[in-house]
């Protein structure tokens, strides 16, 4: 008998929460961004686990799409970071707070 799905799902939930906390506590834009990747991976793990539990290929296919989305986000996100770094000389999120109120 293989590992019960609930173990994976619990692990995914843990990883997801780690990602959430990371975004909330870190100030480096790049690290915040990595935390988003953690969350996406938690979702991926959940999808694959459910795919197995349901014996359904769909969940695995969805992981592909999440990967593509993650890749596109990374490209654009890093582009934005590079472009603002040229002006702000900082990747610290807290430095960017001119817009407020």
């Amino acid at each position, binding site marked *: 008998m293989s590992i019960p799905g609930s173990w994976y799902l619990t692990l995914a939930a843990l990883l997801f929460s780690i990602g959430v906390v990371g975004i909330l506590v870190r100030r480096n834009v790049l690290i915040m961004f990595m935390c*988003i990747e953690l969350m996406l991976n938690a979702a991926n793990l959940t999808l694959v686990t459910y795919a197995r*539990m349901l014996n359904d290929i769909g969940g695995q296919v969805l992981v592909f799409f999440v990967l593509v989305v993650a890749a596109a986000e990374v490209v654009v996100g890093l582009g*934005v970071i590079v472009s603002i770094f040229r*002006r702000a000389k900082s990747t610290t*999120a807290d430095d960017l707070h001119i817009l407020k109120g």
Partner: protein
Amino acid sequence: MMLAVLAKLPIISWPAILPETIFIGGALLLLAVSALSNKKLSSGFCAVYTILISVAALGSSMYLWDKLSSHSSYVAMSSSIAVDGFGVFVAILVCSITVLIALAGEGFFRDSWGSLEFFVLIMLSSSGAILMAMANDLIVVFLGLEIMSISLYVMTAMDPSRTSSGEAAIKYFLLGGFSSAIFIYGIALIYGSTGSTNLANIATFLADNVLVQNGVLLCGIAFLIVGFAFKVALVPFHMWTPDVYQGAPTPATSFMAALAKAGGFAAFLRVFFSTFGTLRSDWRPIIWVLAVLTLLIGVLLALVQQNIKRMLAYSSISHAGFVLLGLQAASAIGVAGSLYYLFTYSFLVIGSFTVVMLVAGEKDTNHSLDSYKGLARRRPWLAGVFTLLLLAQAGVPFTTGFMAKLYVLSALISAHGYALAVIAMIGAAIAVFFYLRVVVLMYSPAPGFAANDETGAALDTDTGIGESIEVGDEAATIQSSGMSLTRSTALVLAITVGITVAFGINPAPLIEFARHATLLFH
């Protein structure tokens, strides 16, 4: 073997995906043309091209609508897309938005940085919104959302001359990524609990089975709500909105204000009203709370703004609260009301931001409310148009804004949502204050004409907020500011005002359109 595989390949129903295909194909073609041509494509060319593509997409959407009125709605592409009145209605709206933004963008970019990319991105982004609206599968919703959002992140970051543009983009992007991750996690949980991401399958599953253990499903729904609520800016998931609206180049702001709401709400309404309709007793209280918060906090914060774009951002938040009322009513009439609201709101907001763009000037910087002092004397037509659009947003009778509010409220009341209706009306009453404030400013004497000492002092105190124009020779800056009205921007204003007034006086056709759209729900 090959034959067996081929036999299993789905029939690609081209008409069903025609609007998206036209947009994506158009964008790729434009990229290819620009790559092959020797000199830089002029923004005029790009704009005309984009308008043609959008009109073609609009035509194809109309064609779908026309076919729907004689045939019933259907699903296509292995049931991943639903061709129904609801989706096609939003597709028509999205195409119209794109036409208007292309026109406004032509007036704004004038061969400056990124004009080509802007037009490519609005086409791609629109395709995402249409995908969202017509999606019959959560993963298509997700992809549509990402296609739309990622383009918007880029457009937000476009303006190299203002640091606030980059800051806004970073904020939008990080928070957008955060909410997308939450959204996809929700999809994963729903997939796990229902065995599918296909909306029709989920609905069938929920109708056939009573889940004894519904924890995972409800959890997934909660995550989905967060994702949608972020995209359409519901309180407390709204905080990106004012910053991003303020920082983004004004045409991009107006595009995202119209498009993200249209696409986001379309998917939101479809997924919750149609797919999770059987669970409405679970999600309606959530929507109730979100609507109350959104309606009140949106207007309260708009009251204290000194920057027109922030003010309009908060006002758009309160509009989102109104659209939500239709979902809260959870009836076909309510959804029709929401659709009608979205339609009218899109035109209002595009018109308003186009005026903002014209007042802001070439550098896109004069967004302080002081820039509007005495506008009526300097540019009476522009001030008149803005007055009309603001009054319509405030919900003055004989404008579309009034009918839209009336419609969702009456749908809500027929669903016995009296308390919420009262709160919404209070919100609308407060909203009148800040709209009128701008109107009064525009019709008050300009600082240049009044006694200089007093107004100078007033400006000094007011310009502390945001990144408004440098405090120095304010009167001179304000006098010289503003872009001239080009033919394309004038056309945008004419269309938006025309629609606002025409359908405000005779709203029946549009209401019938929206009602028909929800009757044709797949």
